[in-house]
């Protein structure tokens, strides 16, 4: 994964976040770069959701 994708994964491992919260923390990152990194996380199939719709990193399959 790219460093940005790894950074996003680390943020989600720390606590669940809405997608918008993640975006807010990376407003200096070009939007396209952010979306590519998000696509990497999706493709890695590591994302899960909580009841509020926040993303988190799945701990077990």
């Amino acid at each position, binding site marked *: 994964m790219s460093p940005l994708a790894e950074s996003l994964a680390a943020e989600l491992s720390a606590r669940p976040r*809405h*997608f*918008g919260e993640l*975006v807010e923390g990376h*407003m200096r990152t*070009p*939007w*396209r770069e952010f*979306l*590519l990194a*998000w*696509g990497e996380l*999706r*493709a890695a199939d590591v*994302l899960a*959701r909580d009841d509020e*719709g926040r*993303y988190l990193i799945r701990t077990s399959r």
Partner: protein
Amino acid sequence: MSAGFRDCLRQLEDAGELLRLKRAVDPRHLSALMAQAPQATFFESIAGYPDWRAAGALLSTRRRLALAMGCSEAAVATRFEEGIRRPIDARLVDRGPCQEVVLIGDDVDLTRLPLPMMHVKDGGPYISATLVVSKDPEYGRNVGSYRMMYRTPRETGIDLVSSSDMRLYYQRALDQGRPLPIAVAIGVHPFELLAASYKAPIDVDEFAIAGGLHGAPVDLVRCRTVDLEVPAEAELVLEGELLPIGWTADEGPFGEFSHITGEVKWNPIFRIRAITHRRDPIFYVLQMPWENDWLAAPVIEAAGLQALRIASVEPVAIRAPVGGCCYWTLVASVKKRPGEGKNALLAMLSVAEVKLAIVTDDDIDIYNPDDLDWAMTFRVQADQDVLIVPGARGKHIDPSVRAGALGRGGLPTTAKLGIDATIPEGVPRSHYERLRYFAKDGVRLEDYR
């Protein structure tokens, strides 16, 4: 040739209803800026996306909807009915501007589009202004509108939880273990979006209804990678297929047309094979909830008028108020004969997911909330004039149907409420004669200033 998205932008601009922003805007700020603008918004420059411009909030008011439809605000339902009554078949043409640029295979990359961030709790950036075309071997072509959430450069989520013809097509393909090819046109004339919003009988081609609204056939081009056709004048087209995975992928939340954030839903995935667009494309951001609401108004109102006429009740006026998101509530005034208050309610409650119907007599101005309250206060006896229909078809995004308790792919039900605010049988109309001031026409206030 029928009018396109750019013709609609011109109409709005000519009427002083389009605001042009010249400074480059980050796609993450498109919706927030549109929400502050009193007019529809045109973004002449998108930061990081030099080939693209964007526009949105085209239909966020009834006035702008009426402008786009070329009629008065009161006439949007009857104008829409004309399109239904006089369909004009679409016309296949050899080429169209929507295919001036063709990206296939490794060149497919959604991140090259200025995908907007819309609401605080959305599950991702959304493509909201979609015209989704699909086909079934038995039922033929279907056109609908379904939101799409970015997942990867070649995949989106799609909201397919509600009952629809395309949901049926997908289920039939899924039963055979096949993907369902779809094509998604973005940046089309509002008439195409209105036709797509209409719950047409399954064998009716929505493009023919759009043609009826235009008064001219909609020009279609064949897609490059799927056996489907899309409006030649579209700004952007995504071609691909719904994967045969059923309702298994997380999608949402999204700022729904009910003005609240929905829940995470379980939905199929759209895998994209090709992206085609104009050489100088404009990305249409359909601003939620207002544009979605107002696109529903003429469709629901026209369906209400039709239902009343089929029930042999004569409608005078009808309104799908924005408080009911132009979808869940219908208010009508009718020329009533004995018993027709209840017949009218039964007809209106048969429309789509309308869950509150109010019917009044033709002396009530249904656009005036005070007049409507007055009718409901003095013409309604709750034990005689209120109708409750339990267990009717509901919609997930209404929190009161408790859709969260359903299994994946489950469909909710709802209770429907009808209020007959017409003059009760046996009460003379003279009992409702409004107060009139003595000599009102004989004196003028100006003469006494």
